[in-house]
């Protein structure tokens, strides 16, 4: 917990890729056991922001505090930190040359130094929870997209993170496969996992989020409880965005 009581605290995050300014001063607080949803058009900086929190991208300016630890400093053990912060990507990014079980046990064994038998026991228990224990010895390409993404979530959970970052994890899925992935995220939220998720699934955001942030051109244009953001957005840009999403949904 940091001084202001939030589990994750972002202040003045700036990030550019060359001349392209992606994040233009982001302030965000996430309380423990809460779910924050980032919404916004493609290119609004959602993914970049999540990657900055996992230190997969270096911020140009600003501070990030996670669990009382300032992670934007210079003397930070990024590998230790990443074991505490799980991230799941849109494209699953499972390791194709490893079985499901090997995917899930790699980080616990190699990064945490847990014995193979212990790691496999834990991994099988996690896979059982999501109903994929019988796929443990399959290679990822034998699984459906929804199953792959659920494995990716379990893989991120295997190191026992205290924060999960989900980067549009249903965007690459066929509509009929989205449900099973969202169900797993819902269970995670119910279990009290602190999460920040970038999503295009507005109804899901409305359901699980304790706070919704609308990102626009590298800043958080508007944030608030989901009922307010989706029913009574204050900002013109938020209204425009939600109207566009609604229209796309109708088509």
């Amino acid at each position, binding site marked *: 917990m940091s001084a202001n009581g939030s589990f994750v605290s972002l202040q003045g995050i700036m990030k550019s890729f060359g001349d392209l300014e992606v994040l233009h001063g982001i302030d965000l607080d996430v309380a423990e056991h809460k779910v924050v949803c980032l919404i916004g058009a493609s290119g609004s900086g959602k993914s970049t922001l999540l990657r900055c929190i996992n230190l997969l991208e270096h911020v140009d300016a600003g501070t990030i505090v996670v669990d009382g630890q300032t992670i934007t400093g210079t003397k930070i053990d990024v590998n230790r930190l990443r074991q505490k912060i799980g991230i799941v990507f849109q494209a699953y990014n499972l390791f194709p040359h490893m079985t499901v079980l090997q995917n899930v046990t790699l*980080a616990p064994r190699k990064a945490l130094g847990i014995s193979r038998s212990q790691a496999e026991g834990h991994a099988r228990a996690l896979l059982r929870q999501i109903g994929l224990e019988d796929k443990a010895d399959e290679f990822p390409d034998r699984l459906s997209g929804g199953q792959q993404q659920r494995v990716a979530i379990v893989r991120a959970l295997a190191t026992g993170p205290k924060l999960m970052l989900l980067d549009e994890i249903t965007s690459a899925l066929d509509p009929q496969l989205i449900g099973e992935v969202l169900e797993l995220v819902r269970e995670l939220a119910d279990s009290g996992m602190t999460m920040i998720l970038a999503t295009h699934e507005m109804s899901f955001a409305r359901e699980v989020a304790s706070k919704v942030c609308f990102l626009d051109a590298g800043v958080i244009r508007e944030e608030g409880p989901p009922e307010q953001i989706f029913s009574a957005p204050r900002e013109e840009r938020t209204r425009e965005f939600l109207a566009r999403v609604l229209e796309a949904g109708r088509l």
Partner: protein
Amino acid sequence: MGQFLHEFFSPFDFLRSVPQVWSGFKLNIQLMLVAEAFVLVLALSLAVVRGLPGRVALPFRAAAVAYTDIFRGTPLILVLFMVQGFATLNFFGLSADTLFRNGLIALVLVYTAYVTEVYRAGIESVHPSQRMAARSLGLSYMQALRYVVLPQAIRRVVPPLLNDFVGLQKDTALVTVVGVTEATAQAGFYSSDFANYAAYTVAAIFFIFLTIPLARFTDHIIKERERRERAQAV
């Protein structure tokens, strides 16, 4: 025509030269096996060095690039002569008499440069998101490389790698120029002793029989992969 057949395919000379050429060919096989073992390891290390990130690694990267540029660009026969010349300076336990070792060093120097590029292409063919996923789980740079990137990279480069090894096997014949009495040299001795070229035919057949299994194995791997990828696409 009869003259030609006699010169190259005389059954008598053919059979009589086999033991002599074979005695030399054993050296080719040794050269090939030892060189391939060194090349596999050295080239992989060099490819990894070439991919190291950051400013600190810049001199190492530059050295690796310079190495591959120099030894891919220099004809093997020149490298052989130069290593032989260097050996006369008696550094590193080498001398003008350590012929096998001198030839081996030249082969390793040149083929390491080729195979480094093969490995590098393989490493670059692994999508960056794989490395990122590994790092995001808390694996270090070297762990991500070892467990996630390299296994995929090496699998992909097996066919071009084996192709380079076919080249290496044949090029062990060039080592004859520094005086290693391998198959080509023995065939030469025979032909000047008995004024008949059948021994060269014998040597050629030995080389062909050595490369055919490797070539077929390469084909097999490529086919197997295509089959698997088609199965995946369905």
